[in-house]
């Protein structure tokens, strides 16, 4: 199961937050963005309970993330 987490950060915390997110093994991709959100992280887990555990025990506790928006990926199409 994959999900994307969009984050809005505080000021001058982006490098610290990126390092903390990169240290979480379930997070497979991290990208810095320009727009409404500052970071995108893609997470890969087995179950929704695991997603909750990782989010509540690790991601939610990262200082510097002001707002986060999680979206579970249902299906993807490529060409």
């Amino acid at each position, binding site marked *: 199961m994959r999900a*994307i987490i*969009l984050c809005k950060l505080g000021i001058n915390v982006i490098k610290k937050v*990126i390092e903390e*997110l*990169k240290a979480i093994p379930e*997070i*497979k*991709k*991290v*990208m*810095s*963005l*320009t*727009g*409404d*959100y500052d970071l*995108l992280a893609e997470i890969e887990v087995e179950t929704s309970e695991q997603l909750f555990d990782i989010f509540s025990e690790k991601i939610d506790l990262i200082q510097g993330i002001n707002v986060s*928006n*999680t*979206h*579970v*990926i*249902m*299906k*993807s*199409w*490529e*060409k």
Partner: protein
Amino acid sequence: MTIIFISLYEKGVNYEKFDVFRILFIVMLSFSILIITSVSLQGAEIKGDPIDLLGFIYLVLYSITGSFLYISIDRDSFSKKELKNININKYYKIPRALIKMAIAFISGVILLILASMLIALLPFETDITQEAITFFNELQFIFVILGRWEIIYLIIFATILPYLLIFLARVNWKPTILTYSQWSSILGLIDPISTLIFSVLLVNEFFPHGYLIIVIVFLVITIILRYAHEVKNIVHAKILLKIKKGSLQLVPIKILKFYGVRKIESLIGRYDLMLHVKVNSFKDFHYLINRKLKPIDDIIEIKVQFVDKIEK
């Protein structure tokens, strides 16, 4: 020459940026072409068989038509049914490419024979009419030629096998920065480098070693400059969409056809779809947003997030 024509086309039609990297690699390529041409003229003089200006004009025409071929291959789009088939089995792309190539080849052969017949019937004599008449005179030997082991080797190892590898690469390509077609256009410069080296080493073509080294260095620098140009100008973004209720079945396949949209993911959350977009210029990006996405009635909200850097 094909690379120069494609670069000029991209500037003229697509308004792609003419940055310092693009200018430098066009200059490098132009110098390489001048050196190769001048060495070829010297070699022809030494052999006592001077090069005809008409031959050079045909070479330029061949490069121009080759450019259009590469541009149309790059812009080849999939239909909705084909996109559905690709997402069921990605290897669908291989037989599709084979069938398209076979149709293009057979159509080309038929057109070539018809055009040659018309040229052969012209009432005046030119080198082209001579070539057309010679073609028909020697057509009877085609099966003798095809039976030779060198031709069978060329067909299998120089055509079928490389194209199979190209198709497999295209199907399994996971671009981190650049797409398959961008990489193939950058690394396509290896072709003239290897042709030069093998023709000098194996066939003893006349090419002074000093000039050979200069041309190879220029072409290698061109590869690096081309890579820098592509990486510098690429527009990488994630576009989040909110769509109307009931349109989740049709909208993703409709949007996947658009140039620049590499992947679509359907989401549970505040947004319904996320598009992974990579285009060569902001003009292409503007076209995608304003001419392709905004006119779709099923899209309620569009949120663009430009990717600055891939951290992991």
